[in-house]
């Protein structure tokens, strides 16, 4: 339990809350998410669907530069039957500038803390809390002054290893 508390503390500490530059912006997003994992024949099959809430800190970044971002995200996935996956993550992102691109590609990687309940093939249930990793490739855009939109696909390796897709919208705070 102490390990979980430390994990949450560190995840929250490295997130956008530490950003201090005046021109940087924060984005709060809500997403739908879907996770597919290897099935009995090793082909990817649907594992769970759900949603995520995220907070991003976007570096104020000029045209033609690689822009940094930090993100913390809470993911809630519900699968068929007993399968559940709850994931708190922290990510670092590198993105094309949104100043010179209406839609900017990005790459992000990060660490996860998951709580999972997982039905096994033999009918048993695996339950537990543990660390993990993730990575995403995606596109993000600022629509107008405040609206933020993002689509991403990537891997999630945290108890369940699979491919995750996410589509979300957000609101930008300056």
């Amino acid at each position, binding site marked *: 339990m102490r*390990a979980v508390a*430390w*994990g949450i503390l*560190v*995840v929250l*500490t*490295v997130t956008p809350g530490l950003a201090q530059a005046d021109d940087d912006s924060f984005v709060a997003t809500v997403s739908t998410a879907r996770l597919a994992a*290897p099935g*009995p*024949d*090793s082909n*990817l099959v649907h594992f769970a669907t759900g949603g995520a809430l995220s907070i991003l800190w976007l*570096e104020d970044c000029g045209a*033609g*530069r*690689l*822009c*940094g971002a*930090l993100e913390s995200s809470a993911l809630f996935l519900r699968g068929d039957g007993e399968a559940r996956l709850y994931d708190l993550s*922290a990510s*670092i992102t*590198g*993105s*094309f500038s949104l100043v010179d691109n209406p839609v900017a*590609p*990005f*790459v*992000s*990687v*990060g*660490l996860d803390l998951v709580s999972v309940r997982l039905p*096994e*093939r*033999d009918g048993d249930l695996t339950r537990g809390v*543990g*660390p*993990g*990793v*993730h*990575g*995403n*490739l995606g596109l993000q855009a600022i629509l107008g002054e405040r609206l933020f939109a993002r689509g991403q696909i*990537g*891997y*999630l*390796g*945290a*108890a*369940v*290893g699979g*491919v995750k897709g996410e589509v979300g919208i957000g609101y930008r705070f300056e």
Partner: protein
Amino acid sequence: MRNLLLAIIILAAGRGTAIADPTGLLVNGTLVKPISGENRVAESSGAGGEILMLPTSNWLVQIGGYGVFGRPATGALARDIFDVHLQVGMTPAERTSTVAPYACLGIDVLSITTRDHDKGETERGTTLGVSAQAGVLGRLGDRGLVKASGTYLGAIVPGTGDDLGGLVLQLAAGMAFD
């Protein structure tokens, strides 16, 4: 757990080092060939992404990750590997060079699933690994960036206790930001 916390802090600190310096954003195709468990463990393939930073003319920092899925084969284990890494290295070439060899070392956080199709068993877990990478970095035009690399990834596989001992081959392409 203490190691995981350290890894998070390193990743967080890494962001501040060089975003304003020359950087690159790359996506890659990845193939993991087991060396220690050859013939007993199948190859794994997938994709990943990387943020490349060049804080000085000779040093480079890479933050990235990849996800690879094991190919099912009779009599062989399929191993899915999900990786996030931080690597620091050096290149002897000047920043204006078109082609630059480099080498780097790093720490990897790995989530590994080992699937035994014959027995219907699955082992999962997260661990830390160490990687040593050598490769070639090339510029294409003003902003194009390509990279070919080979990495030795050392870790103990959670659940099975096997030596991961894998050769990670990657081809990457992306954009450079000066």
